[in-house]
């Protein structure tokens, strides 16, 4: 399993700059998630990695070997397409065996290999069926078996879970993890679902508009996002973001002194899960306390999302991890710890956390 290194990859397509100077290193034998909203360039990156497309400029290295101009079957990479791309006129067995027919293996060896992977992925009882007779999860597994059977050391999965039911998704995530652990293959998941990042939190690259804007683990991205988009993207409910000025200018609200040092053009963000209901009437030097009226209450499973009209541009979202029934119009006070806020500059670049404010690192 080679280490993958992408150097200054650029790709334009129909006037769109799909990939802008992408540099990325994927260590060997990792389970790597490339996360990003739709059209952020993930698929283009995956296709270039797999050798289906050439970059306009830049190089791809597997260990120290330059594979930029090698064809898809000359590198040890396989791609599982979002639509699985199974050959509809062939049975599951023939689908899996298709790449082996191009090798020098004998019929018996091919049969053994296909069986081995089919058993591993628990589809050995479905091998005589055609793709149209298989369920979504089975199709996915046939596609994965087909990708692995020729001995690929790197397997890229493009949005592997969007076509599957929620129940099957969990099962498939576990399968992928097992596969990575048992076979030692590098698994690269291209995904727009932050749940995938939560399932595989160790190695994540976040892509936005053709650029990789952060690489690291989920905790780092959650706690220290480099960019407002990442902060908004990671989280069960999207982060509340307001211009600092609009919060500082609020009437009837207590603003800690440390915050009043902020430049008004900066953006203050805080996660709905960090907002708590506040019943006391005392001042807290380290909390922002917002007062307002309930607009809507959504109950999601065992959690409640309260949309609070606090006199800001948009309602403040509050995530409470139990069921709370708040009627619209009810007056509510909520509090956010200063250490929980995120500060961004006007362009959305991360400046620091609220904790840094107290130390005076972020000043006017």
């Amino acid at each position: 399993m080679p280490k993958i290194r992408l150097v200054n990859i650029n790709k334009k397509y129909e006037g769109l700059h799909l990939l802008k100077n992408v540099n990325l290193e994927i260590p060997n034998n990792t389970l790597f998630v490339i996360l990003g909203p739709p059209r952020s360039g993930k698929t283009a990156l995956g296709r270039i990695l797999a050798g289906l497309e050439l970059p306009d400029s830049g190089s791809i290295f597997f260990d120290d070997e330059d594979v930029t101009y090698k064809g898809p079957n000359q590198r040890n990479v396989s791609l599982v397409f979002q639509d699985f791309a199974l050959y509809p006129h062939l049975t599951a067995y023939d689908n899996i065996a298709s790449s082996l027919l191009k090798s020098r293996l004998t019929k018996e060896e091919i049969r053994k290999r296909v069986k081995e992977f089919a058993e591993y992925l628990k589809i050995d009882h479905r091998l005589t069926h055609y793709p149209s007779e298989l369920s979504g999860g089975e199709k996915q597994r046939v596609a994965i078996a087909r990708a692995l059977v020729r001995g690929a050391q790197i397997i890229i999965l493009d949005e592997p879970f969007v076509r599957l039911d929620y129940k099957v998704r969990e099962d498939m995530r576990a399968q992928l993890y097992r596969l990575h652990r048992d076979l030692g293959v590098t698994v690269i998941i291209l995904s727009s679902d932050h749940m995938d990042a939560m399932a595989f939190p160790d190695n994540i690259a976040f892509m936005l508009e053709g650029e990789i804007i952060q690489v690291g683990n989920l905790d780092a991205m959650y706690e220290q996002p480099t960019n407002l988009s990442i902060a908004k993207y990671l989280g069960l409910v999207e982060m509340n973001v307001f211009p600092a000025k609009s919060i500082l200018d609020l009437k009837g609200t207590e603003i800690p002194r440390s915050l009043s040092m902020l430049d008004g053009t900066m953006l203050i963000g805080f996660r709905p899960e960090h907002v708590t209901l506040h019943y006391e009437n005392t001042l807290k030097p380290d909390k922002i306390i917002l007062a307002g009226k309930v607009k809507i209450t959504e109950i999601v499973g065992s959690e409640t999302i309260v949309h609070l009209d606090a006199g800001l541009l948009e309602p403040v979202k509050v995530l409470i991890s139990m069921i709370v029934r708040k009627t619209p119009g009810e007056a509510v006070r909520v509090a956010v710890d200063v250490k929980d806020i995120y500060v961004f500059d006007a362009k959305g670049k991360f400046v620091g956390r609220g904790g840094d404010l107290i130390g005076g690192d972020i000043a006017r």
Partner: protein
Amino acid sequence: MRVIRMLGYLGLIIYGLFILGPLYVMIVTSLKNINDVFSIPPKLLPFVDFQPTMEAFEFVANTRVLYAFLTSLGVATAATAIAVIPSLLAAYGFSRYKKAAMNDERSFFILLTLRMTPPFAVVLPIFLYWNLFKLYDTYFALVWTYSVFSVPLAVWLLKGFMDGIPLSIEEAAKLDGYTFMERLRKFIIPVLGPGIAATIALVWLFLWNEFLFALKLGGSNVITYTSYLPQLRVGQRIMWNVLGAIGVLGAIPPLIIFLIFRKQIIRVYLGR
């Protein structure tokens, strides 16, 4: 809803009568002798109005009609076979290389105009060309003309089917290590199978029924069954019963094709 359904069925029944009526008359006429054909009021019920006879079919057996049938069969089949292969490649190009320099709506439209031009507008120049090359009244001339005129239809149909095959299937084959020709042979053509069958069936049916080119580009040598029909007269009398018999025989091959490729052809017309 039930009323609308009933009206729908009523419409279909009326439409069916329009279609089946002439067919019935054709079949009945082929079973009459020449005197019954011209009787007024018309005799429509065999065994009741008139005694059926195989006279017309026997007459047909003694003419060159069998030869004309074989010609039609051969010419239509050869022309279809010749037209389908380049059409397949052209359709692949139109479907897959959307960004290629010449591949835009205009070039596809130009190709289709070949089909949309009324045959009457081009039949004379084409006749003159073949005459110039001393190929008038040869099988080669008719087959070649048929092929050329079938290509637009075939490309149009095949492109539609090709568009229905996800590109990812081809790319998966690429990842599996197959070359372009292997991908075409092992993946595209088999998946396209029903579409190719429907295309062949429709192109063949059009050629089987073709009349104008057959009449103008064939002479005493090349006679298809359609161009043979107008010759069937004895004196001033048109032998309707013989025409009916040839019509009945001529309807058999399309009928067989329709029965075999029914599913695929319906799919074409429903656009699926």
